[in-house]
């Protein structure tokens, strides 16, 4: 039985226990690395973006018509002798299937993999009726024998080692098994399960596609067990969510292209099976198979009508959002989901398994965007995770004190900035030079895995009027969106950028009414206040007066570009001002490379060895990948690529406060990967990442220096 922690205390305990499982971390780490390579290979030569768009559009077109499609499907299927059922709830679906079993005098059942059956806990229900149910997908069989839930949608037993499986199979087969011989372990399953297929009265399968215009279903597998499940028994029952309904085979084939490549890096799986009507069946007295299809609602039809959340029903269950998630990679599915796991699991748990099960896990997201960019159906998973977080808080009827305070303070720029300035005085006693090395014990030791920079004595905005360089006959006029981190912690980074830009004839302004971009608010699901600050910034930045709005903070930049249109839309349309802001906002590296087109002549040749950390919100949020690397080369730096350069450093605002142990793991790996390059300097383009990584370097007594791209570039610039 699956037990998911329902509060933060229990969840923290579970996380701590999981972090001790070394096999899990090694295996998931290897998987993350190899998955990336095999996926890239599978899609090579294809227009992946066009395919994603096509899948998303096709699903979006089907969702508002689900009831219609169900009716059309039913008409066709029933004309071919297949009985179609509609189950409002999980219990209803289980009851229908149990009744079919009874009516057909079924004693034994074989099952091929179905996440929908996991969702309804079908096996438990059928076993309670005295039926003998055998899972036949190897991974599912293993976890059934262990009485566990799946830890991955596609590879349900990925959390187990060969030794664990070897012991299990020794027990099942009554013969000593050699765990080192995986081929032989697999053959144990073949041998043990064959008789189950042959004796089974009923087969239960899922469906990847249900095509309305023919009443046929499509099933995608590798092992061949679904073919046996749908062929040998005299009764075949399919259980599928109503969201599996699509108009036709063309839509199915389009989704299939993305599904298999994204799931396992295969051009196609070993078997894809299309079944319609009642195929001949020698085991049945009627000589044709008795077929039933049960469509499960369980909230899907309502979800399909929701203006924000309907998007989640585009999911084709490829599992990739877990594969690329840095948290999944550390914790695995049993600690990162309920029945459904990974990014989509954090969301679906709330809708299919209730808020108690979603409450703690839904907080566990870095907003790193990895899932979003890998999703073949283009679901904005991180955004929806935060939305679910808010729903949970609302339904619980309590927003934590921290949320209420944050919203109050941030909603008022003057109050917020005054508090930040006063905070400088408060931290003076615990500061050790520019860093806080040990937090006062009230914070607890688990937060002590990095040093924290002290706030600047004089924020950028206070230094601005005396600092601002004079640029005569400027080539370009640019407004700087400084973001809290540079304004109050690292004003020097911004000053370096401004000085450098002045040398290129760029005049930079710092509009004083700007405030926090609002991302921290969205991270804590304070949408109303996030919207208020977005409006303030939109006004403060006055796009008409500037050629570009420059930000040195990737997080601010991507939040403004991606989320402002969502937050500020009116009647489903994005206002002109917001569109303009979206067009004019630009990150530092892109500005240098694409707008100023800087050349090697502008820089000294230093040959300094540097490593690079790609901030989540730059490489995925803003989709800026080549520019920073190009810029480092142009600036005469010797850039040494590092492993997992684009994996989150674990900072992510309040995340590291809620989940310090996970944040620490991410940081530890980041530091190790950076050090392995043998470079002297880590360059990145986000002040938040500078803060996290240099905090980690300090704790690990590393000699590597961490700096913002603007700082190193200013140092490398030839003097005029």
């Amino acid at each position: 039985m699956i037990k998911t922690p329902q509060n933060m205390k229990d969840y923290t305990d579970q996380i701590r226990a999981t972090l001790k499982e070394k096999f899990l971390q090694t295996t998931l780490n290897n998987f993350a690395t190899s998955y990336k390579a095999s996926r890239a290979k599978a899609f090579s030569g294809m227009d992946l973006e066009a395919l994603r768009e096509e899948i998303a559009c096709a699903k979006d077109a089907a969702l508002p018509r689900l009831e219609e499609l169900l009716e059309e499907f039913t008409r066709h299927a029933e004309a071919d002798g297949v009985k179609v059922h509609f189950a409002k709830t999980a219990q209803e679906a289980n009851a229908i299937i149990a009744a079919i079993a009874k009516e057909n005098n079924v004693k034994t059942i074989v099952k091929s993999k179905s996440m929908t059956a996991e969702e309804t806990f079908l096996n438990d229900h059928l076993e309670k009726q005295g039926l003998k149910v055998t899972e036949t997908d190897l991974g599912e069989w293993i976890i059934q024998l262990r009485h566990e839930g799946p830890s991955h949608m596609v590879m349900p037993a990925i959390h187990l080692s060969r030794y664990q499986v070897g012991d299990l199979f020794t027990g099942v087969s009554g013969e000593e098994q050699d765990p080192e011989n995986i081929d032989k372990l697999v053959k144990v399953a073949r041998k043990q399960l064959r008789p189950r297929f042959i004796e089974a009265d009923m087969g239960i399968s899922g469906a990847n596609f249900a095509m309305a215009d023919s009443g046929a279903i499509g099933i995608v597998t590798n092992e061949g067990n679904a073919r046996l499940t749908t062929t040998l028994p005299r009764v075949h029952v399919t259980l599928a969510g109503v969201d599996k309904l699509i108009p036709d085979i063309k839509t199915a084939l389009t989704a299939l292209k993305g599904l298999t490549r994204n799931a396992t890096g295969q051009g196609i799986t070993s078997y894809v099976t299309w079944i319609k009507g009642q195929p001949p069946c020698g085991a049945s007295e009627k000589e044709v198979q008795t077929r039933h299809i049960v469509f499960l609602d369980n909230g899907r039809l309502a979800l399909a009508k929701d203006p924000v959340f309907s998007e989640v029903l585009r999911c084709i269950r490829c599992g990739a959002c877990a594969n690329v998630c840095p948290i999944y990679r550390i914790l695995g599915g049993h600690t990162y989901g309920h029945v459904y796991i990974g990014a989509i699991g954090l969301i679906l748990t709330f809708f299919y398994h209730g808020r108690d099960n979603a409450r703690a896990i839904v907080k566990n997201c870095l907003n790193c965007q990895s899932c979003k960019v890998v999703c073949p159906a283009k679901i904005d998973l991180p955004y929806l995770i935060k939305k679910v977080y808010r729903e949970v808080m609302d339904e619980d009827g309590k927003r934590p004190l921290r949320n209420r305070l944050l919203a109050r303070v941030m909603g008022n720029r003057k109050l917020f900035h005054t508090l930040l300035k006063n905070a400088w005085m408060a931290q003076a006693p615990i500061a050790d030079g520019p860093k806080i090395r040990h937090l006062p014990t009230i914070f607890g030791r688990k937060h002590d895995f990095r040093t924290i920079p002290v706030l600047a004595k004089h924020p950028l905005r206070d230094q601005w009027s005396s600092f601002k360089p004079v640029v005569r006959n400027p080539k370009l006029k640019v407004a700087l969106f400084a973001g809290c981190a540079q304004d109050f912690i690292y004003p020097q980074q911004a000053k370096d950028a401004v000085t450098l830009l002045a040398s290129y004839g760029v005049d930079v302004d710092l509009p004083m009414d700007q405030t926090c971009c609002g991302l921290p608010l969205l991270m804590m699901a304070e949408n109303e206040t996030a919207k208020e600050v977005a409006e303030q910034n939109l006004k403060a930045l006055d796009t008409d007066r500037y050629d570009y709005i420059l930000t040195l903070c990737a997080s601010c930049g991507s939040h403004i570009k991606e989320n402002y249109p969502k937050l500020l839309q009116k009647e489903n349309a994005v206002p002109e001002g917001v569109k303009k802001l979206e067009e004019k906002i630009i990150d530092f590296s892109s500005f240098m490379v694409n707008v100023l087109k800087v050349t090697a002549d502008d820089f000294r040749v230093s040959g300094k060895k540097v490593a690079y950390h790609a901030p989540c919100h730059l490489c995925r949020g803003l989709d800026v990948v080549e520019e920073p690397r190009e810029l480092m080369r142009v600036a005469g730096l010797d850039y040494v690529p590092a492993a997992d350069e684009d994996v989150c450093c674990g900072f992510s605002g309040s995340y590291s406060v809620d989940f310090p142990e996970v944040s620490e793991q991410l940081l530890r790996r980041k530091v190790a990967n950076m050090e392995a390059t043998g470079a002297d300097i880590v360059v990145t383009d986000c002040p938040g990442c500078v803060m996290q990584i240099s905090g980690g370097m300090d704790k690990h007594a590393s000699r590597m220096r961490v700096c913002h791209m603007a700082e190193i570039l200013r140092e490398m610039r030839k003097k005029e």
Partner: protein
Amino acid sequence: MENGKNKELFKEKAEAIQTLVSSAATPEVIAAYTVDLTADQGGKTIALAGFDEETLAALLPDLKEKAKAKGIEVLEPPFRPHLENIHTGLTPALWGIAQTGTLVLRSADENLRIATMLAETHVCVLDPATIYPSTDELAPLLDAAIKENGAAYMAFITGPSRTADIERVLSIGVHGPEFLHILFKEEKADD
């Protein structure tokens, strides 16, 4: 010309996923290949299904004779009584998909399904003229085949049965055939 390209690509893709592909199969070659392969693997039975009358007439007597010489039985349908006893399944494919090295089998016939699912080895005969570049070109044909009157069971088969469920180590032959051999049918020299 175009078809030559599809054939080449099909072969390349199929071979990349543990499938053996050979060319220019006449009924005689098919019979000899299947029997020799079965004998080499120590198999005792062959289950044949899905061929049209004409091919069957050319293939079956020869197959039976060659099999008998090696002590191999060519099973008589229905195959239900032989579920635990099929070594080689010999069937035709309806179409091929070059991009992925995929066979498409019309499988409503239960005997064909049993022959291709429960065998240790599947030998499949494919006419290179029926290979399409990708599912895009095949979609209308597949659509029509599914919508034909009565029951449909269309199977895409790409390589042997596989799993990576234990420590993500690829292992072949978990529930379906462990070996897949494709024989390109001899092409008519009409160009």
